[in-house]
């Protein structure tokens, strides 16, 4: 009993301390050169989807923001912060709407629940091409309950819909809770890092990965920027 309470006390102390001296890594992902310009997607095969897009959808494998910001880049701590094993309770959801995956890149924690919903009038077919994890291929007719899945091993999984070949997305399965997805101008933020040496990795589905090492001492914010080389084709 007493030992228990002591343990509890100690652990709370540790956690709080790690919160007190919480470093943050933030920065910006940019690109140099001229990226291939997004191709418009012709959905005429699926009228019910096509009419949901006032301006035709374009490919999302390279999404750029203002002043060379690069979006949809997964930035995460690849070493230094061992996985604390905390699986987020709430599920991440992956929506199929207008024959498009929302979001295009979906980061999630290993074993976190993944809910896949179909908001379209047509039947979709979710086919994540997993290599490390178990590959599955399920159809989801309109009006059927969401598909619930989870992945056991960290992996970047490319997702396809076999019925609508243009539909393409990514599951980024992480073994850490310290990850972020570059937004707007390519900005990202990794908060709550206890002091220590870290390797930060940035992953982009077309341009590959880049890494940077940072050391957090106490309560501070370190700036780390990544620059990818864009491919014209």
């Amino acid at each position, binding site marked *: 009993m007493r030992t228990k309470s002591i343990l509890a006390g100690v652990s709370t102390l540790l956690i709080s301390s790690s919160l007190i001296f919480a470093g943050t890594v933030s920065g910006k992902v940019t690109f140099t050169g001229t990226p291939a310009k997004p191709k418009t997607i012709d959905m005429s*095969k699926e009228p019910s989807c096509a009419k949901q897009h006032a301006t035709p959808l374009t490919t999302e494998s390279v999404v750029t923001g203002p002043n060379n910001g690069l979006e949809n880049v997964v930035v995460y701590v690849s070493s230094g912060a061992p996985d604390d094993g905390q699986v987020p309770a709430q599920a991440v959801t992956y929506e199929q709407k207008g024959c498009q995956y929302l979001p295009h890149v979906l980061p999630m924690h290993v074993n976190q629940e993944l809910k896949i919903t179909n908001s379209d009038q*047509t039947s979709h077919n979710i086919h994540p091409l997993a290599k490390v994890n178990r590959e599955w291929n399920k*159809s989801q007719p309109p009006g059927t309950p969401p598909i619930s899945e989870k992945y056991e091993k960290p992996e970047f999984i490319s997702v*396809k819909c076999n*019925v609508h070949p*243009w539909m*393409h997305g990514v599951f980024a399965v992480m073994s850490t809770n310290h990850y972020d997805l570059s937004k707007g101008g390519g900005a990202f933020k990794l908060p709550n890092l206890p002091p220590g040496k870290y390797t930060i990795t940035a992953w982009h589905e077309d341009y590959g990965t880049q890494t940077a090492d940072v050391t957090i001492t106490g309560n501070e914010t370190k700036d780390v920027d990544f620059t990818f080389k864009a491919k014209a084709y």
Partner: protein
Amino acid sequence: MAKFFAATIVVIAILSAIPILRHTWTAPEDISTHGALIDEQMSETMAEAGISFLAAQFILAFFVWKFSNRAPDAKLKKFPGGAKGLVIGALLVVGIEVMALGIFGVKAWANVYLDAPSANAMPIQVQAGQFAFYFRYPGPDGKFGGLHPELINEGSQNIFGLDPEHDVDARDDIVAAEMAIPVNKEIHLLMHAKDVGHSFFVRELRVQQDFVPGLDVSLHFTATKIGKYEIVCTQLCGLGHYNMKAYLEVMSQQDFDDWLKKQGQ
């Protein structure tokens, strides 16, 4: 019971014939230059098949009506003609009938499959893959870029596996998900299968042809009527087979050129 059976057959036969005679469900109007012969062949066959169908059912009904449940002392009768008559009759009538059909049919078939496309036919490549058709126009240079299966990436819309980086011909190739063609111009369709067997079927054009993986086949036709038609896959190709389709837009030459320009940008 026997008379009821006879009556039932007659009723069924007549009811089955009505939708045919009234053209309740029938193929849409033909918009191709070669289709007329096929339709003609179709209606001739329909006439002959229909007559044989009705005749057979009626005779069966008549005999069942007349010769069932007869009195025990009733006399058996032998069909006057005998087997020889029937056999010779069948050989002559049916033989000539089907041979005629076969021979006339050759012409209709030849139009589509045996005659070569004319030299100035417009080449379009169609690629069938699970579960969509994509169409490729050679672009201003009139040359198709080479295909590199390993480069195919549907996520970034490199449907055909083109290599614009190194292949100059590929740079101006125009890829579309719907097929636009100028009216009254012969099209030479080069059919390429990306993965498994598919088929290219346009009812109005009176064309149906399977894609053969590993072997590019070709098809040629001329559309004579402006409009929007449906291209469907008729070869079971997997779970999305039912949804594998594309639209065929037959346009005036002017509209077509504009469309092509628009796609080019």
